């Protein structure tokens, strides 16, 4: 029952959100620049330009263009990219595997590294290793991502010549999913971009795990557990980690959504043919149909990730209840 009401709630939310986003994206369109200038040589005459503008329908008033867009969108047609000459949905779908693989891998790496380290930093705060890890995490947050990327390229591609510096390498097509995980070449190409992304995600999650863990370890029920004589590992993992995981899921989910949609810098530097690179180039080229569709896609992505996060939360903590406004309230579950 709870699941059903959650689903309904989220669906209505999604529709409203997407509708609002579409209006905003559309009204911003005119400020993005003139798509024709990218497509026509400077030497083309004014008459030709005006003709082409008419043909594409750029001269029609806002409401007419929006209406046309809306009607087509409701039929699943979100427009054709000026640059790729294909339906924008196809273009976005084709670039998705690259980003999904990169972000999920980086996320996994971040999770595997941040949880143990964060726990360690929380449990043994005075340990020199903890200080080192916290210091590194500050460094990681402060260094801009492109600097990390270029640094990694410099060390591992140019000097050591161990790893490739751009592209996805060899990919295998399985049904419609182009994966780089099945070839050695593809995996090698994944390493540097993945490390770069992890360098931004890791500091955040390390600190999050640490601070949540510290808070949990001060709670009453943990003190009771110590008093009861339960082993350290039981306290740390059954009580500490489990309760830490919940906020981690929330933050993690949102971060994942952000990275999936907007890993612009990392993808640009590594010429990684994913969604972020696609979006950045679309903006530079003023590929308006693609830009509008991508903004909608990003909105949809966030709605979906939020929904999944809430689902996971529900699974992890059945006592949680979701208020009508969509926030979550929970009592301390594991004691």
């Amino acid at each position: 029952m709870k699941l059903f009401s959650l689903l309904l709630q989220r669906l209505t939310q999604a529709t409203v959100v997407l509708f609002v986003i579409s209006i905003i994206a559309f009204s911003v369109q005119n400020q993005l620049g003139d798509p024709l200038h990218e497509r026509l040589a400077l030497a083309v005459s004014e008459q030709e330009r005006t003709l082409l503008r008419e043909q594409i329908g750029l001269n029609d008033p806002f409401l007419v263009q929006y209406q046309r867009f809306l009607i087509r969108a409701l039929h699943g047609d979100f427009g054709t990219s000026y640059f790729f000459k294909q339906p924008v949905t196809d273009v976005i779908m084709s670039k998705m595997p690259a980003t999904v693989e990169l972000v999920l891998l980086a996320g996994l790496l971040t999770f595997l590294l941040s949880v143990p380290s964060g726990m360690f930093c929380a449990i043994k705060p005075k340990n020199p290793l903890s200080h080192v890890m916290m210091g590194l995490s500050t460094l990681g947050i402060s260094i801009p991502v492109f600097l990390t990327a270029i640094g990694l390229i410099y060390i591992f591609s140019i000097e050591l010549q161990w790893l490739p510096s751009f592209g996805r390498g060899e990919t295998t097509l399985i049904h419609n999913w182009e994966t780089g995980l099945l070839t050695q070449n593809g995996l090698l190409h994944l390493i540097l971009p993945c490390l770069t992304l992890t360098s931004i995600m890791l500091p955040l999650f390390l600190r999050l795990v640490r601070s949540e863990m510290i808070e949990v370890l001060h709670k009453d029920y943990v003190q009771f557990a110590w008093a009861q004589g339960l082993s350290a590992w039981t306290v740390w993992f059954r009580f500490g980690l489990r309760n830490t995981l919940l906020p981690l899921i929330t933050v993690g989910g949102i971060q994942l959504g952000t990275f999936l949609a907007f890993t612009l810098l990392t993808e640009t530097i590594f010429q990684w043919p994913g969604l972020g690179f696609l979006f950045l180039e679309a903006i530079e080229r003023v590929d308006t149909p693609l830009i509008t569709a991508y903004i909608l896609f990003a909105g949809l992505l966030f709605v979906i990730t939020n929904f999944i996060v809430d689902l996971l939360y529900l699974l992890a903590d059945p006592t949680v209840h979701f208020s009508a406004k969509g926030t979550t309230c929970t009592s301390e579950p594991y004691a």
Partner: protein
Amino acid sequence: MTQFSHEKLLKLFLLFLAVSLLFSMKTFAEITVVYDADPVSLDPHEQLSGGTLQLSHMVFDPLVRHNQNLEIEPRLATSWTPTKSGALDIQLRKGVRFHSGREMTADDVIWTFKRIQTSTDFKGIFQPIKKIEKINAHQIRVITHKPYPLLLNILTYLFPMDSKFYSGKTANGKDKSLIIKHGDSFASQHTSGTGPYVITYREQGIRINFKRFQDYWDKQSVGNVQDIVLLPISENATRVASLLSGKVDFIAPVEPNDHSRIKRSSGLQLVTMPGTRIISIQMNQKQNAALKNKKVRQAINYAIDQATIVSKIMRGFATQATQMSPVLYLGHNPALEPRFDLDRARQLMLEAGYSKGLTLSMIAPNNRYINDEKIAEAIVNMLAKINITVDLRTMPKAQYWPEFDKCAGDLLMIGWHADTEDSANFFEFLQMTRDNKTGMGQYNCGHYSNPEVDDLVKRANSEMNPARRSSLLQQVEHILYKDAAFVPLHWQNLAWAAKDSLDIAPIVNAMNFPYFDQLKETAGAQ
């Protein structure tokens, strides 16, 4: 028994030797070329851009082309003779095959010309040609509306296409020959030309694979590269890194910041060349009355120090300009001297009545020309020295061009490259009186209007004698200089970098169309 096994052993050993030699023999196999972008389409007429033309030179052949000295050299046209009526009879090369196997004839050339006339981007260049007639299978007659001195320059853009390959309907019932700018077309994804390379694989934005065309007509070609992989890497640092890491063989463009790094690296070479793209500032006389005053415009010219911009901002990677025409062009006037003189500038401002100062607005792009934003900022500083306050707005090119179309600034930066590799093109677009009907002065945001200049350009455009034509064009440069019609800054240089094993110096040129048909890879390649 022993003798037999010895013989067998010897044979095996020889076989082993042969096989291992075969494998260790250096096959000039595949080179990887990295540009900042891959071609937007495989259709040579869809978009007039550097990328499209670079591709055309690999997959197709033009009738004629410019060499490094900007002289015309024959390609698919072997010779040409003017007729009495003022037309040009052109002999086409025999025995030239398309990738599809068909032989190229006059029909293909004429078919291609007719298609160009339907191309939004290319029709303007070919406007002077009235029609092309077939005399026989390997001879055509090109007829212009009136005597036109740059006919051969235009024909460098005529890359004969396989008319049979591009005729008929696709599986979806669309005409194969259609040029579709904002849609999908057959020609944008399939090619059949006479060029040195055949496209074997293409994934937009990712990679194009080329294979040497075995039936290529140019048997004299020294080029020996069999396979080329073209990759786009938009980020400058990553592109250079790919060359430094040894993974790719040839990159372009190379930003000035990276030049010393490449020169320092062993096994790599950097080739640079003066370019023909002029970077200039226009002074909008219509929007700001002060700019109508010649003395003010001259003062601005005297206040801007092009030499310092070239040395400090461009790091020497540009050629200072006093006019529009680069050195190799007919209209280049060697008598025009650089004129940086702050005292003279202040004097002129005083004489013009603006010694108290003047405020001007300026717009410039920030991602179109090399160091465009920095140059604009330097100009702001330079003009401040003669009491001119400049309100600078810079923006990405996507937003800049609509602003430029409106001439929305007192000072506007614009770079121009002449499609015809000839001086008149500069004047037609940037200095002639604006005329919506004829399209002249389309980018003349200075609103400079001088009937003498207009007349000289018109006369030059029908003057067939190169010496007389040169003199007319040089006169135009002289007048523009005297009138301080605009502010010339510099011509951008071009740079390419590659492994030492690739002989790239002879194949590159000022138009940035590397002629890969002539690319030789030497032994000792890694």
